[in-house]
């Protein structure tokens, strides 16, 4: 107990220290790096909270993709950094903001301390009904059966976000390829990594997806991994992002949601409700949804990181 508490205490101190540093450090680039470290530390915290699924997601998306996004952006914005920093509020507003933020935090802390004991939980209900899904991972059961609509809407969120990002395309580049053309040294370090890592990543992603039914893991973690691999290959100049006007690309983007919807509606005649699974077929259907969603998620996430098209489709 106490050794564990000591370790957790150290972890908390580290997390907070990195967080403070990320907020206060002058240089945005450094803040981006700080956020990557923060994400990894936070993933550890998730492990300590017995939420390995969340830990994987946090590490992959929070620590990984978000940091890539931020660091890339800080590099592109470097020229304007000094000018933007000049607009920093004076000490008085900063003090006021600190007071306000501190009050909110203090209030929250009080609420945390006052949370009821024993805590209410849905774990028994999940345990009671998980058998109908044939899954071993309760989190996956929640995501794809009990609260499937959330997951469906979440897939829609990703598509919305991508549509929103694409709206920012300059008109002349519409239908073109996202992101700049990466003219990377084919013998450089990035290319080196991009040649070695992605195949391994593919194996790991399929693994994460496949075990997701019973162990921590699932389509988001797997999809993120695939996206990261693809991005690596793109940024290393080994392959190119497809033009966004391609039909096949649009098809892949919506595939997961379409499969989800199709199976959901099939549940109306077969299982008596939208998003219900016919008895005994729950697990294979869920795996089918997950597999299709993984691909869609991977493409969507990668394209989100790449941003709107910045050049014409020369193909």
């Amino acid at each position, binding site marked *: 107990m106490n050794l564990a508490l000591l370790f957790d205490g150290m972890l908390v101190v580290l997390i907070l220290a990195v967080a403070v540093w990320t907020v206060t450090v002058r240089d945005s680039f450094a803040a981006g790096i700080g956020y990557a470290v923060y994400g990894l530390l936070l993933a550890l915290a998730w492990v*300590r909270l017995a939420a390995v699924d969340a830990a994987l997601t946090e590490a992959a*998306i929070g620590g990984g993709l978000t940091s890539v*996004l931020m660091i890339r952006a800080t590099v592109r914005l470097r020229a304007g950094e000094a000018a933007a920093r000049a*607009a920093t509020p004076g000490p008085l507003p900063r003090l006021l903001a600190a007071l*306000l933020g501190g009050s909110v*935090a203090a209030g929250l802390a009080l609420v945390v301390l006052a949370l009821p004991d024993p805590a209410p939980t849905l*774990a028994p209900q999940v*345990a009671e009904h998980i058998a109908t899904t044939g899954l071993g991972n309760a989190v996956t059961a929640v995501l794809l059966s009990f*609260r499937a609509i959330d997951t469906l809407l979440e897939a829609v969120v990703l598509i919305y976000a991508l549509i929103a990002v694409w709206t920012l395309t300059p008109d002349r580049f519409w239908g073109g390829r996202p992101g700049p053309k990466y003219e990377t040294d084919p013998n450089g370090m990035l290319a080196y990594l991009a040649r070695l890592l992605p195949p391994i990543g593919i194996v790991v992603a399929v693994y994460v997806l496949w075990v997701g039914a019973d162990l921590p893991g699932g389509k988001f973690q797997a999809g993120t991994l695939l996206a990261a691999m693809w991005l690596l290959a793109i940024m290393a100049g080994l392959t190119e992002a497809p033009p966004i006007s391609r039909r096949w690309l649009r098809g892949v983007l919506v595939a997961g949601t379409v499969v989800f919807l199709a199976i959901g509606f099939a549940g109306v005649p077969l299982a008596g409700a939208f998003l219900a699974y016919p008895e005994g077929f729950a697990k294979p259907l869920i795996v089918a949804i997950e597999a299709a969603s993984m691909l869609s998620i991977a493409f969507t996430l990668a394209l989100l990181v790449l941003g709107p098209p910045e050049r014409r489709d020369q193909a």
Partner: protein
Amino acid sequence: MNVPTLFGLCGAVLVGLGLYGLVVSPQPLRKILAFNLVGSGVFLLFGVVARRGAALGMGGDPVPQALVITGIVVAFSATALAVALVLRLHDMTGAATLAPADADEPPVA
């Protein structure tokens, strides 16, 4: 003091810290980063709620754990959109701040 409470307090502080950053950071990117801090603090609190609900051999209540995953993905989507906006704004104006529009009303269409 137990483990969930410790992380719960950590989450509360992260929220406050992120809010502070969101207010005072002049650069939009740093605001986005601060928003992510707030978000992760909220998720951490949710994780604490889940952990407190551990029962029947489950290390935590799976419902909040599942929701956190959804939340993280949503937060990432938001971040991606915000960053894309900042970059586009920068490409167009050579600067990326939220300041100038305060001065006067923008032309409209």
